[in-house]
């Protein structure tokens, strides 16, 4: 059921920010314990949760701590005894938390964490950028990245299902400010639907229990560490199908699905496509429509919903039909390219009929990314396909080169 249909009969539609959508999903997931420490643009998630506890008599426990490091330690402790755990952070907060994030990944505890993306200092900055959300993809976590407020709600619920099944913790990333602080209508399913989708009485072989004592994460020898890491690798690699399947099962219950690991937009006859994640995907889709109408460019959008598992299988199927892909990264791997472009190239290298892949970087630190920026990417991709311009290691979006020169002349 879409929001439009739902509006006719059912009243549980709310107009909320994406941060409130996260908090509502955490409430509906009946999370037991939340480790809470404030940082923009995440803070209002915790504010909404405390409001629900205060006004709705929830049994959820929010533990206010002195740092993000401890916020994740709280989530880890709770998950270790089989409680459903959540936390949220961003930017510098994630960096400070990092040690415990890695530890939870290694411990195979089904924690879910929201990261409202934000660039990192220095210099001091509040604006949106995806580098922080992408970091835990190397830390033994799955990383999902929804596009809009409804999908944020739905993905938090899906994340608990995936985490409980795989014993891999899940990050749900959402664009700081341009989603976290944006108000949109969302539909909230009946509590019974959510309860049946993510039951709490699932097997928890890892749950610590004083009547049958054992420990987590103790010292091991190097003869088993590699095997532990291999199992994390294998589990995440194999969960590409699981992410698809969970999204399909959610559709059966709610009528909403997002393509699993990848949302495909106007790709049936496409020659060129942009790979993009998060909120700007909507602008990229509008640009694809525009360049089809204006210039007849057969343009489409590949929206990655899942960064870990990286959708190698599905991306390969899609890419083999395309002539060129532009990967728009709102992050960077200094001196190399966009982080996702790097992974797209790795995923497609062995493909027989592989498309040209052009890395684009823009929007760092919250610089606005416009529909016309995506239109320009599409026209450039077409020019690359036609042999009129070449591929560069990186093409920059919205970069003011004159400003770069003037700053460094002053220095």
């Amino acid at each position, binding site marked *: 059921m879409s929001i439009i249909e739902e509006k006719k009969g059912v009243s549980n539609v709310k*107009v909320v920010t994406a941060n409130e959508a996260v908090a509502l999903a955490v409430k509906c997931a009946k999370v037991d314990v939340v480790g809470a420490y404030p940082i923009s643009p995440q803070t209002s998630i915790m504010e909404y949760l405390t409001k629900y506890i205060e006004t709705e008599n929830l049994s959820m426990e929010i533990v206010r701590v002195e740092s993000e490091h401890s916020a994740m330690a709280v989530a880890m402790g709770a998950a270790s005894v089989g409680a459903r755990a959540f936390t949220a952070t961003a930017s510098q907060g994630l960096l400070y938390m990092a040690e415990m994030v890695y530890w939870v990944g290694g411990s195979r505890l089904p924690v879910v964490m929201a990261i409202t993306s934000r660039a990192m200092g220095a210099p001091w900055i509040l*604006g949106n950028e995806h580098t922080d959300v992408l970091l835990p993809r190397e830390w033994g976590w799955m990383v999902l990245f929804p596009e809009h407020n409804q999908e944020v709600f739905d993905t938090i619920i899906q994340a608990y299902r995936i985490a409980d099944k795989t014993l891999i913790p899940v990050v749900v990333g959402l*664009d700081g400010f341009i989603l976290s602080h944006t108000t949109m209508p969302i539909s909230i399913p009946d509590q019974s639907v959510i309860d049946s989708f993510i039951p709490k009485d699932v097997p928890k072989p890892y749950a610590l229990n004083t009547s049958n004592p054992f420990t987590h994460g103790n010292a091991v020898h190097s003869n088993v560490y590699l095997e532990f890491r291999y199992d994390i690798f294998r589990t995440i690699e194999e969960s590409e199908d699981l992410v698809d399947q969970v999204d399909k099962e959610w559709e059966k219950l709610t009528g909403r699905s997002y393509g699993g690991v990848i949302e495909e937009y106007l790709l049936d006859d496409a020659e060129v496509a942009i790979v993009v994640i998060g909120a700007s995907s909507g602008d990229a889709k509008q640009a694809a429509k525009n360049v089809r109408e204006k210039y007849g460019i057969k343009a489409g959008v590949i929206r990655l919903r899942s960064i870990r598992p990286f959708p190698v299988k599905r991306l390969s199927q899609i890419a083999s039909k395309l002539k060129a892909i532009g990967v728009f990264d709102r992050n960077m791997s200094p001196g190399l390219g966009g982080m996702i472009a790097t992974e797209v190239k790795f995923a497609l290298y062995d493909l027989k009929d592989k498309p040209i892949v052009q890395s684009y970087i823009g929007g760092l630190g919250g610089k606005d990314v416009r529909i016309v920026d995506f239109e320009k990417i599409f026209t450039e991709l077409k020019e690359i396909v036609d042999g009129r311009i070449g591929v560069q290691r990186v093409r920059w979006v919205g970069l003011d080169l004159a400003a770069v020169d003037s700053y460094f002349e002053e220095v």
Partner: protein
Amino acid sequence: MIEIKFLGRGGQGAVTAANLIVQASFKEGKFGLAYPSFGAERRGAILNAYARIDQIPINVHQQIYEPDVVVVLDKKILQMTNIVEGLKPGGSVIINTNRIPEDLNFDGKLFIVDATRICLDLNLVISGWPVVNTAILGALSKATNIVNINTLVKTIEENWKGEIGKKNSQACLRAYEETYEVVLKNLVRG
């Protein structure tokens, strides 16, 4: 799709105004999206908030560069920035002011309302600041009819219960009554 740009100062409630217009539109079966422009928000600083309204769900997140409507919550902003920058030809500008701005010239309609006076009369003042957001929404409804005044009043009273909700809906209604169009002199159509 209608795009609305609110220009205000931190503390005047521009962000809340953008949110309320989306909530109210949704009640009328339309879809919307509202968001603030970002920085280290602080009281008194100039800030923008945006709202988009359409018959279908909206999923475009770029900032608004060519608004259909510009709403100015503080007359001093007229001296600080070009408020009609990017305004679509024939678009509407709504200004909270007690004086007709003399030197404004653009292709579109100008509406004014003394929302500050209305808020002072109703004692809608927080920490010394008249909070003009609900009043200016009444003006927006009168000027553009993007959303019906009754829907706005209902939305406001759902967001704030009791006396404070009543005061805000009164401000909205009074602004609706007192908003009027000013005929632009020396208009050069583009």
